[in-house]
């Protein structure tokens, strides 16, 4: 064992003993630091998880969504436009969709109603969301719906399968649930009632021949933007949304919300740094005496700085690991309970599905860089102040 390594181990050992001797003071710093790391790492892990989930969900999103605009607002589009779109070279399929929102006064929840005519063999179609119970819709189903587990709970269906919704004229439309969406798609389907196009038209009293969107599937994804441009040329006044734009929107939303979290984190970190500085810089008479004795016994200024550095490093590293581990458990086991409202919105129907924390070394490094390193820097000056206590102070 070299003298250099031996010196380091000896001083580290002394630092551990010193931490234990000042247990109360160090414990409070450790708990606060752990809490700060926990918050930030939770945000990071949840954002990472949502981003990955969004990518998976985008598989079910249409290549191109076409909506009619009037006076800057979306209006119904005539089904007749379908033929024009189908005539564009490279377009594989065009599907009509009715997409609307239904406010349930009884529960205060907003449902997203999607009316689509399922293709034959929808079970094998990747663009159709999967179900975990029951079955998918069939092309000629009437009065049948697929809903999420959350909606079943919100409607209080229990073992029952039938429920009713109001049409605009306040007459009742009855539906039977034939399937429940797979939980892994909760982010997309938590508030969705999926029904046939005809049922949605009936529920919203949309005139025959009109739909809210036309969904375009292209043969070659590389030509997506080219075809989107052609659609905009052929149908002036429509809004053309590509899958990439939806992806960007997801990223912006999650990044924005994660950014809010980051601001909270930085505020907490700054408050903690002030606290840590205060605790570390306040040298008690006993501490001054201890440093004086160590120096008169032959400890160099750099030995005292190393001692203080070891104390800070042990606290911050332990807090970092504990905070990150707790964040992982919070996200993976408790589904990010404490922060999910911030990241997923404030709707009555929030995705209840589990988060799958994504381990990214870059995230770990980022958390380390903006927590442990600033802490070590914040405690460096107090460490130096302690280290320059004069040896003759104890003579």
């Amino acid at each position, binding site marked *: *064992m*070299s*003298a*250099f*390594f*031996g*010196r*380091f*181990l*000896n*001083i580290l*050992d*002394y630092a551990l*003993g010193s931490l234990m*001797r000042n247990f109360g003071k160090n414990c409070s710093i450790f708990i606060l630091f752990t809490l700060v790391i926990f918050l930030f790492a939770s945000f990071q892990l949840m954002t990472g998880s949502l981003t990955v989930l969004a990518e998976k969900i985008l598989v079910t999103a249409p290549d191109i969504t076409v909506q009619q605009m009037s006076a800057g607002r979306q209006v119904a589009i005539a089904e007749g436009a379908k033929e024009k779109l189908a005539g564009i070279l490279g377009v594989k399929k065009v599907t009509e969709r009715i997409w609307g929102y239904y406010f349930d006064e009884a529960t205060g929840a907003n449902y997203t109603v999607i009316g689509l005519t399922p293709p034959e063999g929808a079970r094998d179609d990747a663009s159709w969301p999967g179900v975990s119970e029951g079955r998918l819709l069939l092309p000629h189903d009437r009065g049948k719906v697929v809903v999420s587990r959350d909606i079943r709970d919100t409607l209080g269906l229990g073992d029952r399968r039938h429920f009713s919704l109001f049409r605009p004229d306040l007459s009742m439309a009855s539906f039977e649930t034939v399937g429940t969406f797979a939980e892994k798609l909760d982010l997309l389907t938590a508030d969705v009632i999926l029904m046939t196009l005809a049922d949605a038209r009936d529920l919203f009293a949309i005139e025959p021949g009109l739909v809210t969107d036309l969904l375009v599937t292209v043969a070659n994804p590389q030509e997506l933007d080219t075809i989107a441009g052609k659609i905009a040329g052929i149908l002036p006044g429509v809004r053309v949304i590509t899958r990439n734009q939806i992806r960007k929107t997801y990223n912006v939303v999650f990044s924005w919300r994660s950014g809010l979290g980051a601001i909270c984190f930085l505020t907490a970190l700054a408050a903690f740094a002030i606290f840590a500085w205060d605790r570390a810089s306040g040298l008690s008479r006993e501490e001054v*005496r*201890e440093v004086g*004795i*160590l*120096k*008169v*016994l*032959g*400890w*160099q*200024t750099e*030995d005292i700085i190393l001692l203080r550095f070891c104390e800070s490093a042990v606290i911050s590293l332990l807090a970092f690991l504990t905070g990150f581990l707790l964040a992982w458990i919070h996200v993976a086991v408790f589904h990010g309970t404490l922060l999910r409202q911030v990241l997923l919105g404030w709707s009555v129907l929030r995705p209840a599905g589990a988060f799958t924390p994504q381990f990214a070394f870059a995230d770990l490094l980022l958390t380390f860089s903006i927590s442990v390193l600033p802490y070590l820097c914040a405690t460096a000056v107090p460490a130096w102040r302690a280290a320059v206590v*004069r*040896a*003759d102070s*104890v*003579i």
Partner: protein
Amino acid sequence: MIIELESVNKIYNLGEPNEVAALHDIDLTVAEGEMVCLRGPSGSGKTTLLSIIGCIFGPTSGRATIGGKRISRLPDHFLTRYRRELIGFVFQHFNMLGHLTVLDNVTLPLLPLGVSPREREKRADALLSKLAIGHRKHFPARQLSGGELQRAAIARALINNPPIVVADEPTAHLDGQLAREIVDLLAGLKGEGRTLILSSHDPLVAGHPRVDRIVDLRDGRIRHADAGG
């Protein structure tokens, strides 16, 4: 000569309103293996002189050579290095860390040298046994009596095997019998070839038969140097 001081002056807070001249033109040489007692009332400069001999700080002017190293104008880093190579300290107030065990206190000077725990304990055991305090090595220092504390402090001073031992009023807080035991212990170090510099106004120390020389200090000046014992 293991200690050579030539025209040494020490002024605290030089150039400031609270400037204090603590030592004036001190000339002192001490041979290897000598036991010297610095005597004088409070404020006479004993502790300042001990601090210079102990490489805690250098003089304001004059030449100080300790163990062959000229320390007059050395930065703190080198003073500390020479201090741990050359000097063992015994303090008036013991200066033990009460929350540490005797063993931990005694081995403190070895930590920055990278000495392994096993070697540290081996060296400490030998010294603590020799000073008849081995049975207390795992006790926190705050539980020890004054005599035990000073024995532990002597063990700590010797753990680096220094050629010079500096003791500042080592019997000030001990009663007669204990004080005699401690002075005997310190005097015994002379037999090991170590040089001892003690400051005291206790006649028990100055009158000890093994003291070679008594140096009287008054107002920061050497008034008189006598053969001791």
